[in-house]
């Protein structure tokens, strides 16, 4: 029997993607997962723009990760111009990232992933039977938004961050208020992590290379080297290792490392940086008796739950450290431009994000390269589907689709970023 499975506009993911499967007997002949989001050519639009305009423009690549793009872009510009931000600015950036991470993980876990495991179509439908869970999700999302708003000026596409520093500083009272709210949210985070530790994930193991940032001191966020079990390299060397290629069925490109697929994201971060987790996050891990490295991609959900607990602790720590002192951002008119290249790599909710700009002596961007996490995960997702599918073939079509969607969603892919997700069409040959 041969059949074709086509999933167009996969749902409950960020952006649009299609999956095209062709199965003959027990052989998977074709497995094409690709983004079908219209191309926006951000890198092209950056050319000829002033480098300090880049954060505002690249923020529009992705709504859910707009702080991440803004900050990565800012750091690339700073790198090129040789600007060193103050420690306060760095802490505020990290706090904004913590806020964004909380809302991104909470949204993904409860709104996109959980309905699959509880047998609901959407979180909105869960709201009667699982009122507690849905309300918890909304509380966490709200907290994340409040943090981002307090620092960035609004929930999305932050306004107060610029190369060189903050345009507007939050008041000390606002920071203290955030600390109080973060402390209150600790129980919500732990309940979430426990919930996602208790879920029975499909039994499926496939080891791949797990890449994340690593600095040997902290759980990575805004800096570090690129590290996996077998590899380690500096951020400026990324282009030596990572290659991109295109397929006609995807508007997102594929990024591979030396001919091989690799994985980025919460699971990869955890596999490489387990030791740097906060105490209470570590406790969740030991209580659930998992062993590292985790090679089941479905466990990315579990990893996000653990991270949620960690980031809330980290947020509290940052708020404690912060004693807001007046500082001024560098006015674009005072920036000293020179011909230079700036590369920034940071950890964003879905993995590693790279912004790489070349600027000229007038401060115009000459060339830009942006690599998003989903592009890096795309091939690995495909390979996972290929490996997971044979065990599913006896199931009904509906179940196969559900399982594959679960697998794809566990990666928390974001196709707006990578250049839209899953509607299935079955074509029996």
């Amino acid at each position, binding site marked *: 029997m041969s059949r074709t499975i086509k999933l167009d506009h996969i*749902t409950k993911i960020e952006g649009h993607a299609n999956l095209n499967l062709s199965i003959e007997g027990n052989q998977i002949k074709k497995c094409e997962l690709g983004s079908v989001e219209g191309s926006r050519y951000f890198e092209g639009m950056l050319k000829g723009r002033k480098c300090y305009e880049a954060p505002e*423009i690249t923020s529009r690549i992705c*709504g859910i990760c707009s702080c991440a793009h803004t900050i990565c872009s800012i750091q690339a510009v700073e790198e090129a111009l040789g600007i060193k931000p103050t420690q306060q600015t760095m802490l505020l950036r990290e706090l904004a990232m913590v806020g964004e991470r909380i809302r991104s993980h909470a949204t993904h876990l409860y709104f996109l992933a959980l309905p699959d495991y509880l047998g609901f179509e959407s979180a*909105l439908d869960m709201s009667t039977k699982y009122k507690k869970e849905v309300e918890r999700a909304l509380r966490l999302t709200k907290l994340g938004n409040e943090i981002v708003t307090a620092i960035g000026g609004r*929930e999305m596409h*932050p*306004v*107060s961050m610029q190369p060189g520093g903050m345009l507007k500083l939050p008041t000390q009272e606002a920071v203290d208020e955030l600390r109080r709210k973060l402390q209150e949210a600790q129980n919500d985070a732990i309940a979430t992590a426990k919930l996602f530790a208790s879920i029975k994930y499909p039994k499926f193991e496939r080891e791949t290379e797990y890449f994340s940032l690593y600095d040997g001191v902290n759980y990575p966020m805004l800096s570090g080297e690129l590290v996996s079990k077998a590899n380690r390299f500096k951020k400026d060397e990324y282009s030596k290792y990572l290659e991109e290629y295109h397929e006609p069925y995807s508007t997102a490109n594929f990024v591979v490392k030396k001919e091989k697929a690799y994985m980025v994201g919460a699971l990869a971060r955890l596999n490489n940086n387990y030791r740097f987790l906060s105490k209470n996050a570590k406790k969740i891990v030991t209580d659930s008796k998992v062993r590292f490295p985790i090679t089941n991609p479905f466990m990315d959900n579990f990893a996000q739950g653990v991270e949620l607990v960690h980031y809330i602790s980290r947020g509290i720590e940052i708020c404690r450290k912060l004693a807001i002192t007046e500082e001024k951002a560098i006015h674009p008119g005072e920036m000293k431009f020179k011909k230079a290249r700036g590369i920034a790599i940071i950890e964003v909710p879905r993995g590693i994000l790279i912004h790489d700009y070349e600027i000229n002596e007038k401060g115009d961007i000459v060339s830009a390269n942006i690599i998003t996490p989903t592009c890096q995960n795309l091939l690995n997702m495909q390979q996972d589907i290929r490996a997971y599918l044979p065990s599913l073939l006896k199931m009904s079509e509906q179940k196969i689709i559900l399982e594959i969607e679960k697998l794809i969603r566990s990666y928390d892919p974001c196709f707006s970023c990578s250049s839209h997700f899953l509607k299935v069409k079955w074509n029996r040959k």
Partner: protein
Amino acid sequence: MAKDKPVVGFYDLTGCNGCLLSFVFNEDEILEMARHFQIKSFRLIKELKEEKQFDIVFMEGLVASNMDLEMLKAIRAKTKTLVALGACACTGCIPAYRNFIDASKYVAMVYEKTKEMKDTQPLPINKHVAVDYYIPGCPPDKKQILDFMKDLLLGKKPADYDRPVCFECRLNENRCLLDDGKMCLGPITRGGCDAVCTNGKLECWGCRGPMPDANLPLISKLLEQKGFPKEHIKQRLRTFAGMMMETPPEPKPIKIKPAKPAKKVKLVKKKLAKKKLAKKVAKTAKKTKKAKAKPAKKTLKKVLKKKALKKAKPKPAAKKTAKKAVKKIKKAKKKEKTAKKTAAKRVQPSKPANEPAPQKTFKAESEPQKKDKSFFNMIKGRFKR
């Protein structure tokens, strides 16, 4: 009972999902709001259901590919009230800035795509279909989306935004950023955002589009006097709402590269494919005891052969694609013309009796664009009524 509630869909074309998220981020009200509507389609958080008819559809994003266009048209055909949600849908936002840059800046990034995914000129949705309401902003303020939905429920005319950002900025007692040497577009930009950017000390970039009576020549003169280079001013004005101010130059046909260009990558692909297949074969062999090794190997060879064939093709195809591209663009132009006609002809959707008439300001342009190439005359013509 439930049948009386309006059937609502949330859709997205090409965009960043920020507008839809902005609605979702109404954490305190979203569950309550969901009870008053039948939310039938919301790809971001629900399975897609094909509805025959929608009362209201919120459309995020702009048209940037054939797929977008098809989806937009299909949804317009079954929707009573189509709401353009956010700057991408209203003005084309940053993705439409590409209309104003030279193709040489992005041509290297353009690769061969399947027909349905082929790029189109990036355009706000009203250039293709009739739009009933606009909620501008990048992203639209989350409360603003709620207020709009409440108004629709109550049968009220959704609030009109007819004051510039400066008005709100002054109300918030901000220090004027123009005095700080920042290129603020607040004076000409439609407010309604509570001047959120200037509150955070970032100059207004004009994401909500220009006021109907915006005096663009004046603002650019003013900014020039402040010492900003002309080219830079132009770029800024075009970034978020260029499409509302001028007609961009006709897109030129561009040469499209085959999907797998680099030699290196080809190699990578081959090895990868072999490895992948070998692995898969090993796995399937293990898992399904019945599957024998021989036929599996055959498929491996076949697949590799096919891949090799595919790879051999692109070279001679390159010229063809270029020719095709020219043809396609010609066709697209024709289509666009017919689309405009049909959009104009489109039978107005039957509206419930209590539904308000579309806003007068910030309205879809149904008249064909004038082909005046000078930058500011265009705007003048468009906005002086």
